[in-house]
């Protein structure tokens, strides 16, 4: 199968179907809640089967496309062709998958629609190995508008980080379509923390103590599914951390709605045009 076709299929599937872990978390939340909160979760689970059977996006906000190309240091790579591959595949996926054209240019002026949902936001980084991994987030903006960045004092420590995330959700309340998934970037510079807060959604491995503690603290806020109250305000927290400066402790928080739409494509051996 050609790289382009694999990307198109993966991105369209992400608009209609949630990752296994997200569905499991929603089903567990449904069992735990009652009253209006349960009604909201029932609608969410019904919506997942309807989008699958109708073959349309599960949410009309198919997002602004965020892409992270992780390039193995031993991979064959033509970076210009890789960029072209990403952009042409996405353009085709948006058309074929009936994505909404949600991107505008002249952001503080005319705000005219670009008409093709392009451009995506693309980040490139190097890693070990000989493959290229493309990570995609279909990033809805109801939740993105609730995201935050805090430059903490270096002495604020773990508790400061937890509070920065919990405060973000206190302000967000019912706006980002809870129960939410949260990405947290800690360290680096201001911009690096923000990028890490999105890379965090692709972490592997088990939930850490810090992630569990943040999730539990958010769940005590009683925001609940659709803001109806209840035990489930957050279904998952992912933290990514890097070294920072002696004078600071940057904390970035990406808020993602319950529809945690993401896709990953591995280009084995890299990509130089084939």
């Amino acid at each position: 199968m050609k790289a382009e076709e694999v990307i198109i299929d993966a991105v369209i599937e992400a608009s209609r179907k949630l990752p296994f872990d997200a569905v499991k978390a929603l089903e567990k939340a449904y069992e735990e809640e009652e009253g209006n909160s349960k009604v909201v979760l029932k609608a969410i689970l019904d919506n997942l089967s309807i989008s699958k059977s109708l073959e349309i996006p599960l949410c009309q906000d198919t997002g602004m496309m965020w892409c992270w190309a992780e390039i193995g240091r031993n991979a064959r790579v033509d970076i210009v062709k890789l960029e072209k591959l990403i952009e042409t595949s996405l353009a085709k996926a948006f058309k074929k998958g009936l994505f909404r054209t949600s991107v505008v240019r002249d952001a503080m002026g005319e705000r005219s629609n670009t008409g093709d949902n392009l451009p995506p936001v693309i980040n490139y980084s190097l890693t070990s190995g000989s493959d290229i991994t493309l990570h995609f987030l279909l990033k809805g903006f109801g939740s993105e508008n609730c995201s935050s960045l805090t430059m903490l004092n270096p002495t604020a420590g773990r508790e400061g980080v937890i509070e920065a995330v919990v405060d973000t959700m206190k302000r967000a309340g019912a706006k980002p379509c809870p129960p939410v998934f949260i990405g947290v970037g800690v360290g680096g510079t201001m911009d690096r923390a923000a990028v890490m807060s999105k890379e965090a959604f692709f972490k592997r491995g088990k939930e850490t103590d810090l992630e569990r503690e943040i999730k539990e603290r958010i769940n005590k806020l009683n925001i609940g599914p659709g803001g109806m109250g209840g035990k489930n305000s957050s279904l998952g927290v992912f933290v990514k951390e890097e070294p920072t400066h002696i004078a600071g402790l940057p904390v970035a928080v990406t808020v993602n709605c319950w529809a945690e739409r993401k896709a990953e494509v591995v280009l084995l051996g890299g990509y130089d045009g084939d």
Partner: protein
Amino acid sequence: METKLFLPSQNWSHIHSGDIVYVSGKLYVARDQAHKLLVSEIKEKGETPFPFEGNAVYYMGPSPTKEGMAIGSSGPTTSRRMDEFSPFLISKGLKIMIGKGPRSEKVVEAVKEYGGLYLQAFGGCGALYASRTLSSRTLLYPFLGPEAVLELEVKDFPTICIIDSRGEVFKP
């Protein structure tokens, strides 16, 4: 409590905050840019571009329509961004609003003063709402693309009442 609302309607005093409300009938769709334009058009011309009385506005911008369906994915968008425009529109007769998330104090006051209604649709459930939409046509501002004003015919749209006509706000 579960209840039904048929639009246009002249009476929604039976609906209380916290009630599950199934909405059927006509809905007018408008979001950010359409709100901005509606407000300036009404101020300029002194009249509303579609009948406000007894009708509802739905905060939404659909994804493209699949062949054979009435509309694409079509769940609610965040109501908060419409808060600066809503009190003016409510004062001009548009009393019923459907969106998602909380509203400002000023919107709550306007709903109470004019006996309006704010319903929350289920965020992210675009495919569900598409499956309950019978027809759709573009009414105003087609140049806004996915933000154009639409007229929908819907059946059993599930919502929850957040602010009722008495100004009572649902609190979890």
